């Protein structure tokens, strides 16, 4: 009897949680479909998708996302590998460092960036290209907690040291070990980190806004200020993109538990 009551409570809270989450989303979806008076239509979506500024900002953020993923992987993968191999004692310190982006507000971080790199000797805000370097570095820092943790979990699931030594005893050098042994066994971890990082860059507002770059986040805010239905359509597109990334993570993770050895486990 007690179990049954517990189950009902669990159902109640699950339903309440789902309503809390989906009701506003349903409201947004419904609103985004009412641009044409009296009928449900995809007009708001058509308007958004045909706006050249949307496409430009989407392209820009997607490109920045891809570059951020590449730079993050190049920085974090060898670093975490080396920590596991030689500096395991400093792992707790690194863990604390990697959560700093959660503790320091992004706005504070952006002002720090602007104050440091907005004037000589390290001025990076004079040209769009240099500002893009700065914004990418910013994205790398903001995505650090996700990328670090994703790779860290992957590293924990394999015996990094023994695999490295086994490869060394067979004649492999460091880059061969990393590329042929470690990376293939961390494929899912890297993919997970990459997709979360990409989603984060696509939705990021403050860096793009304050560094005055044509990113998707500032564009969405701008549209929100000027128009009614399009922001709702944009919000739904943004949700869709994030869910696509999460779905892909689920998909590749599922593959990993099969006999195909995607995870190498």
């Amino acid at each position, binding site marked *: 009897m007690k179990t049954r009551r517990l189950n009902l409570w669990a159902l109640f809270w699950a339903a309440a949680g789902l309503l809390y989450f989906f009701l506003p989303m349903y409201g947004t979806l419904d609103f985004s479909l009412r641009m044409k008076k009296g009928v449900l239509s995809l007009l708001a979506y058509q308007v958004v998708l045909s706006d050249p500024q949307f496409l430009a900002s989407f392209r820009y953020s997607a490109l920045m996302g891809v570059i951020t993923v590449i730079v993050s992987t190049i920085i974090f993968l060898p670093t975490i590998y080396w920590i596991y191999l030689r500096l395991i004692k400093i792992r707790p310190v690194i863990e604390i460092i990697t959560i700093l982006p959660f503790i320091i507000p992004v706005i504070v971080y952006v002002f720090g960036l602007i104050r440091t790199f907005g004037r000589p000797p390290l001025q990076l805000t004079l040209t769009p290209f240099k500002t893009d370097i700065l914004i990418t570095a910013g994205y790398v820092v903001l995505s650090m907690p996700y990328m670090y943790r994703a790779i860290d979990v992957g590293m924990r699931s*394999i*015996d990094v040291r*023994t*695999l490295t*030594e*086994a*490869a*060394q*005893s*067979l*004649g*492999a*050098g460091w880059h*061969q070990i990393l590329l*042929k*042994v470690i990376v*293939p*066994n961390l*494929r899912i971890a890297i993919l997970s980190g990459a997709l979360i990082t990409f989603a984060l860059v696509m939705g990021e507002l403050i860096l793009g806004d304050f560094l005055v770059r044509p990113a998707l986040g500032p564009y969405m805010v701008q549209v929100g200020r000027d128009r009614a239905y399009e922001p709702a359509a944009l919000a739904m597109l943004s949700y869709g993109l994030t869910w696509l990334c999460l779905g892909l993570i689920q998909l590749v993770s599922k593959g990993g538990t099969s*006999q195909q*050895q995607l*995870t*190498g*486990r």
Partner: protein
Amino acid sequence: MAFLELHHVSKSFQGSVAVEDFNLNADLGEFVSFLGPSGCGKTTTLRMIAGFEIPTAGTITLDRQDLTFVPPNKRNVGMVFQSYALFPNMVVSDNIGFGLEIAGKQKSQIAKRVAEMLTLIHLEDFGSRYPNQLSGGQQQRVALARALAIQPQVLLLDEPLSALDAKIRLELRQEIRRIQQQLGITTIYVTHDQEEALSLSDRVVVMSEGKIEQIGMPSEIYNYPKTEFVAKFVGQINLLPVEMVDREKGLVKVGEQLVHAGQTLDKVNGHQVRLAVRPEELNPGFRENANNLTGKVEAITYLGSIVRLRVEIEGHSVSLDMFNERKLQLPNVGSPLSITFPVDACWLL
């Protein structure tokens, strides 16, 4: 000059000594085991030969080449790990061919060598399986094949059978020896299992607290242990405190009972002396021209093929092993028992 030489090798980790003044000469094709308890420095020594640790002092030479500071990937030394360490993302064939691929061999050469190795380990049909589709014993065989595929000058095995169950361990032990003899490869084998070391090796190095206690053939190590540690660590031993009676004749007393120690006592002056005798050398009964002791049966333990009697003699517990024959007549616990052993079966430590 020996094929593999470790000359006064030592290793310290932040001031604590792991291996101290280790000297070993292993000949080409020899099978040498490092035997000792956990933390005795056997794996550290093996890792220094592999190149994963750099000695604090001393030199390691292989076929007259100084390897002391050569990185592990330049040594041509094959290694088999306790945890197999197969690459989980590669199928068996790719695992075995990994070293050859790294060496830049042609695909046809790799395929030929992989097939040879699979035949050697009797896993011809398993080339396309992933490591997680194999049993522990099969995985360790693949690890062995992978280490041998590169035709290393020395094969190093770090407790390769520890993670396997008893039956598989026995099978694989014979398999390792067969392959080693077939290929004639110099092999260093690390184990804490005395039975493994004694049954596999040409020579055994017994280690304790970073130092070599004794190097010798298995029969030497078992029958003529040089130190109390070796006597105790390899096999079962009875150690009885004795009093000297006649130094020249080698007579000692266990409590009130006389024993002929089979050696003069000149060498054991100045320290506590103990009589050492293996349980299997003791027999119930009385014999002329042998050592005889009397005591009381304390316990009887069945150990499968043998039965172990614990006999209390002059306040000390002595173990006696008997073959577990079907018609074996056993004394009752608490009953008096005479035991006998030849003079040359015991020695003083």
